[in-house]
């Protein structure tokens, strides 16, 4: 460096000397001093370039120039805050939208479970219907196969956990014997559950807690192993802690405690280990090394065929398939994959639109700089140098954009991963903002920025300094030809229209879902949920010993209009369905069943409390007991399917066990499992006939819900202080999980729609004001020559309007086509809805009008005298 400094120290002076000698020579040859000096300088050539090139010889010149260019770029960007800001915002939003969506996609779907050889871990699920198996089915697969190294099942359950003298409701997992062997993790402390623990009911009271529970609920106690706890009043001993980062095999359900499945009867209050019809278990299997998928499927077929032969009553028609574990197999995984792929495509569209926008922004900017560039070229700057300064400007913008994108996506993903959806279920998004993802965001924005920064290069290389300076920056025939930026704008507007259409379609779907008839009225109702097995009650005793007294006391609370309870309520995810047979059926096998119906056990008064209309017949009553004939209240759909009429009171149907049940009432149809389901059959049985410890109490009143919730809590606690209440509050708020998919879709698509609009506003405004300012002189002359406002407008912005119009039309058509995909997620989403089409068209029109309003005003208010004076 010092040598360099020494060498360059007197460079300017040397050159001056050189020119002085030449001048002297010229004078000696008889030239006039002035002339001699000019001749000398001419002969020397460009002093500045010579100096620069000499400096370059001494190396780090590129670095020096780079710094210089960066400083220059920063300065020019500061002088053009509008351009800089829009470019950075466009980049940041476009990139982060993609990174966020990809992060979710990656966390939920692409990334396998964090287990050794996760690719061998799969889940089995029935070909039709829900994702669950029953325990005997899992056992048949486990004991009769040669392709799996381990087969296990889990049941996610809520437990009342007593530790350190306090009882809390926690989410737990009943795991069958081979579960931990299958997942293949090493315990963080102690040991995990083994086959012996699950050998028979009561074989062991071992419990394993999760790392996060150990951390938060047990104070990270290193001597935790051996600690006694009570689960639902039963004594257990903590034998181990799972390693950090193990969240079970369902990505959206994170259990805090694992217990042997053999003990389920004592914990759940019902015994289902021998019940083939009790489908509630997630299965997990690990495929043996070197066994191919077709082999597995062939063997499954054999096993299922054997099951159907041996148990035709329950298993006829059963078919099992392999699915990826993590999201309830294909049950949630399928739609989630579809939806996320769709959103990813939308994010891609937004990125494309952002890039198009960036491209036209840079093109317009370069055109604005034509004069500056021409001057720089005229005074001897090399094209490479100018190109480099343009590149560096793009680079600086991409760095800023990239940094903003990184921060934005990191914060969003972080927020998302610590966010709990509005439900009591242990759902969590395991989306970790991976550094690689953030790096990708940064690189992506660099790439996009530089790519589109370089687009206007052609423009620069074509620039003829003479021409550019003469015409004062506005070229001879400005904007007469269709330029690249027009095409970019049209494409961008079309893409934005797609996102806007998608947003409106999902918004419309959501608003319909919110106002839809649910078959019950969650407004002005509070809902209480608890499981009395956690307080030591059994299904046989619970009605008489607790629930009836509770109902009577609640009905005495002033202001209560109606109250009732059920084992569970519609739309709370734990819906059960069962086969219904016509009365003539004698053989109760699946092929003979009439249809499946959702069923609930309800108390008298439940229908009134829930606001479900009883259309004919009577409500259930406490006098319907196990000793009286079986009765049910069914919905209209049930009656229609079985009897092809709704006049069904007094008629009979049969259940799977062949019991004849009389229909005593007809109630209105409703939604039972999801909002987007087709009309389903449902039957309500009297809860006094078959008790259930799971209790959902519904109370309807006009009083303030806060008061009501407190009053009911007092009643419950007065009856038995040991009852842990899982959930309480207004029924509407507890229903939010049902609206969750539509809400997520609407929020996501709404964001993309808003972003699309923003992009199109920026793009349109940018191009329109660019067009007007480019042609300001021409327009002024037209005004001076007496052109009318209409003529001025059509001259200035006519082409813009064509671009806008054609872009919008193409975009809306594309959007309508794409929105068909949405209907799987969002209830009743349809782009054929005239309301949606009108709203999209109106929005596009409005934003178009808004964004050209400024330039139009400018064009109309041209004062020719002033402008012509200036130029």
């Amino acid at each position: 460096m010092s040598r360099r400094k020494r060498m360059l120290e007197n460079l300017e002076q040397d050159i001056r000397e050189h020119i002085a000698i030449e001048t002297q020579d010229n004078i000696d040859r008889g030239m006039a001093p002035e002339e001699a000096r000019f001749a000398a300088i001419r002969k020397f050539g460009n002093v500045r370039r010579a100096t620069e090139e000499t400096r370059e010889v001494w190396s780090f010149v590129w670095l020096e120039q780079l710094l210089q260019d960066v400083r220059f770029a920063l300065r020019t960007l500061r002088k053009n805050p509008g351009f800089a800001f829009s470019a950075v915002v466009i980049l940041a939003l476009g990139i982060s939208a993609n990174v966020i969506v990809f992060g979710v996609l990656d966390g939920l779907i692409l990334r396998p479970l964090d287990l050794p050889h996760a690719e061998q871990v799969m889940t089995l699920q029935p070909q039709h219907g829900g994702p669950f198996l029953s325990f005997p089915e899992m056992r048949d697969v486990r004991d009769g196969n040669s392709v799996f190294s381990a087969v296990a099942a889990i049941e996610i359950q809520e437990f009342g956990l007593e530790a350190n003298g306090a009882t809390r409701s926690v989410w737990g997992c009943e795991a069958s014997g081979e579960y931990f062997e299958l997942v293949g993790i090493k315990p963080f402390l102690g040991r995990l559950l083994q086959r012996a623990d699950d050998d028979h009911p009561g074989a062991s009271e071992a419990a394993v807690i999760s790392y996060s529970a150990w951390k938060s609920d047990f104070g990270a106690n290193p001597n935790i192993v051996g600690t006694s706890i009570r689960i639902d009043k039963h004594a257990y001993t903590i034998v181990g802690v799972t390693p950090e980062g193990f969240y079970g095999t369902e990505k959206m359900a994170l259990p805090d405690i694992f217990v042997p499945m053999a003990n389920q009867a004592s914990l759940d209050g019902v015994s289902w280990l021998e019940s083939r019809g009790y489908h509630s278990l997630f299965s997990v299997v690990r495929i043996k090394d070197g066994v191919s998928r077709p082999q597995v499927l062939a063997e499954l077929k054999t096993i299922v065929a054997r099951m159907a032969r041996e148990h035709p009553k329950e298993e006829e028609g059963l078919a099992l398939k392999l699915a990826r574990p993590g999201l309830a197999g294909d049950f949630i995984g399928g739609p989630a994959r579809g939806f996320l792929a769709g959103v990813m495509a939308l994010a891609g569209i937004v990125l494309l639109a952002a890039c198009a926008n960036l491209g036209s922004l840079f093109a317009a900017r370069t055109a604005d700089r034509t004069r500056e560039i021409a001057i720089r070229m005229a005074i001897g700057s090399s094209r490479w140098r100018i190109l480099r300064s343009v590149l560096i400007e793009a680079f600086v913008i991409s760095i800023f954009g990239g940094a903003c994108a990184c921060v934005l996506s990191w914060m969003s993903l972080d927020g998302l991963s610590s966010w709990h959806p509005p439900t009591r279920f242990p759902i969590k998004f395991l989306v970790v903002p991976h550094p690689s993802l953030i790096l990708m965001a940064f690189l992506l924005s660099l790439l996009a920025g530089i790519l589109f920064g370089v687009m206007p290069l052609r423009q620069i290389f074509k620039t003829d300094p003479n021409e550019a300076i003469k015409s004062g920056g506005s070229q001879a025939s400005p904007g007469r030809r269709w330029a690249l930026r027009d095409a970019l704008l049209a494409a961008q507007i079309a893409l934005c229209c797609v996102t806007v259409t998608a947003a409106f379609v999902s918004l419309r779907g959501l608003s319909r879902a919110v106002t839809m008839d649910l078959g019950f009225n969650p407004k002005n109702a509070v809902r209480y949920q608890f499981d009395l097995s956690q307080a030591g009650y059994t299904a046989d005793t619970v009605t008489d010993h607790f629930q009836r007294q509770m109902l009577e006391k609640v009905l005495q609370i002033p202001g209560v209009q109606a109250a009732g309870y059920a084992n569970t309520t519609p739309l709370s995810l734990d819906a059960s369905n069962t086969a219904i047979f016509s009365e003539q059926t004698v053989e109760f096998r699946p092929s003979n069943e009439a249809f499946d119906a959702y069923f609930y056990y309800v108390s008298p008064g439940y229908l009134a409390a829930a606001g479900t209309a009883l259309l004919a017949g009577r409500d259930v009553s406490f006098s319907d007991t196990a000793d009286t004939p079986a009765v049910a209240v069914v919905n209209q759909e049930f009656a229609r399917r079985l009897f092809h009429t709704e006049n069904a009171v007094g008629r009979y149907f049969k259940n799977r066990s062949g019991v004849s049940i009389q229909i005593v009432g007809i109630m209105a149809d409703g939604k039972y499992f999801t909002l987007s389901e087709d009309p389903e059959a449902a039957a309500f049985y009297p809860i006094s006939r078959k008790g259930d410890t799971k209790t959902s109490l519904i109370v309807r009143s006009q009083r303030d819900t806060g008061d009501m919730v407190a009053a009911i809590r007092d009643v419950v606690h007065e009856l038995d202080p040991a009852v842990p209440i899982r959930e309480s509050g207004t029924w509407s708020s507890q229903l939010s999980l049902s609206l969750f998919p539509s809400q997520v879709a609407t929020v996501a698509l709404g964001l993309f729609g808003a972003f699309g609009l923003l992009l199109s506003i920026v793009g349109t405004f940018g191009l329109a004001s660019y067009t007007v300012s480019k042609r300001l002189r021409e327009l002024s002359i037209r005004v001076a020559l007496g052109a009318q406002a209409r003529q001025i407008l059509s001259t200035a912005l006519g082409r813009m309007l064509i671009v806008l119009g054609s872009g919008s039309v193409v975009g809306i058509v594309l959007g309508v086509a794409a929105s068909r995909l949405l209907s799987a997620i969002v209830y009743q989403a349809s782009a054929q809805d005239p309301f949606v089409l009108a709203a999209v068209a109106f929005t596009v029109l409005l934003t178009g009008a808004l964004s050209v309003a400024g330039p139009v005003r400018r064009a109309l208010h041209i004062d020719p005298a002033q402008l012509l004076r200036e130029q």
Partner: protein
Amino acid sequence: MSTREQRERVELLQGTLDLLILRTLVRGPVHGHAIAKAIEFNSDDVLQVEQGSLYPALHRLIKRGWISVEDGTSENNRRAKFYRLTPKGRRQLAVETSKWDKLAGAIAQILRPAEREGGS
């Protein structure tokens, strides 16, 4: 500068300037302006050196160690930098010269038949 002059003068090939500078310095240390003059003079003014491009070339040669630089006084008593051929530069000159000869020979060989055709 008249157009006639421009047509008669030949622009320097890339890299040949280095060779010419080295050749000029064989006779002893010279300052920048004198190098330019010498090249023009020795080529009967056919080779036009854009004097400005001399300086980057000189510095390139210094950096490669083929020439060295020292302070001195010019003929009309001005302070100037004098450039001197180093032993390394002298060796390089031999290499470059033979390279140039080969190149010139080869080009001449290519051009000669064409000349004959044109002449006939």
